[in-house]
């Protein structure tokens, strides 16, 4: 009896990985990787500060990411990053991982930790 139950949970987990993800799924994933709950407040501070480089995240995504931004170097418009303002955000794992990798490298000169990603996403989700 217990075994089929576990089995069906495993199956539904596998299915949810294959399906389109939601911003909440990413938050759960990052919190799990970090082994701790996210802090939106910490995320906001991370997002708006420079980490020893020329740019902060808000240099391109603005300090109010429900608004559109602009690439600090090329001037190209960027759609809002907060999921409340842009339903396409945080729905595609390859895209999310790629941009965290690139943008953290540009801003912090290293990859972001799972905790930092969780915090930033919690803050973005709180932006309405």
């Amino acid at each position, binding site marked *: 009896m217990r075994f089929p139950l576990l089995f069906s949970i495993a199956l539904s987990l596998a299915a949810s990985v294959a399906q389109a993800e939601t911003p909440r799924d990413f938050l759960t994933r990052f919190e799990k990787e970090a082994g701790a709950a996210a802090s939106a407040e910490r995320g906001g501070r991370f997002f708006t500060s420079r980490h020893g480089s020329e740019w902060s995240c808000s240099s391109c995504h603005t300090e109010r990411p429900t608004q559109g931004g602009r*690439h600090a*170097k*090329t*001037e*190209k418009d960027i759609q809002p990053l907060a999921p409340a303002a842009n339903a396409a955000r945080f729905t595609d794992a*390859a895209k999310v991982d*790629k941009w965290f*990798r*690139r*943008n953290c*490298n*540009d801003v912090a000169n290293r990859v972001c930790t799972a905790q930092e990603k969780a915090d930033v996403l919690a803050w973005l989700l709180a932006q309405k």
Partner: protein
Amino acid sequence: MKRTLVLLLAAASFPALADRYVVPKHAAFEEECASCHMAYPPQMLDAHSWQHLMNNLPKHFGTDASLDEKRRVAIADFLGKNAGGRKTGVTADAKGNPLIRITETERFVRKHRQIADAVWQRPAIKSKANCTACHTTAAEGNYSDDNVRIPR
């Protein structure tokens, strides 16, 4: 007679199409190479230059534009196949090293020699690479002088 006239009119309205650079359709190129800036036409650099650029994406003009290897190879291949041509000119420096900036190529410099340094630095332009600031239809590959508006 009527047909000749139509042909003549058509020819006059597309003067040799020297100012058109049609970007062939390629989903990965559009997604990956038009996210931070417009898609620069593959015809504006030669294959050697594109190869050099595509081998250095983690350090791409001061920003990290790294890609997974499968996509990188697919886009490099697409750029290589569509590179160069009649309108490309020389895209290497005096020593023969490949240039990776279109804006440093001999053809670009020649076509823009009348633009003063102070114009490039205007806040609404900021960079020579910001083609769309002046060429309002650059994203569609149309560089016709009819569609050039230099912002004040």
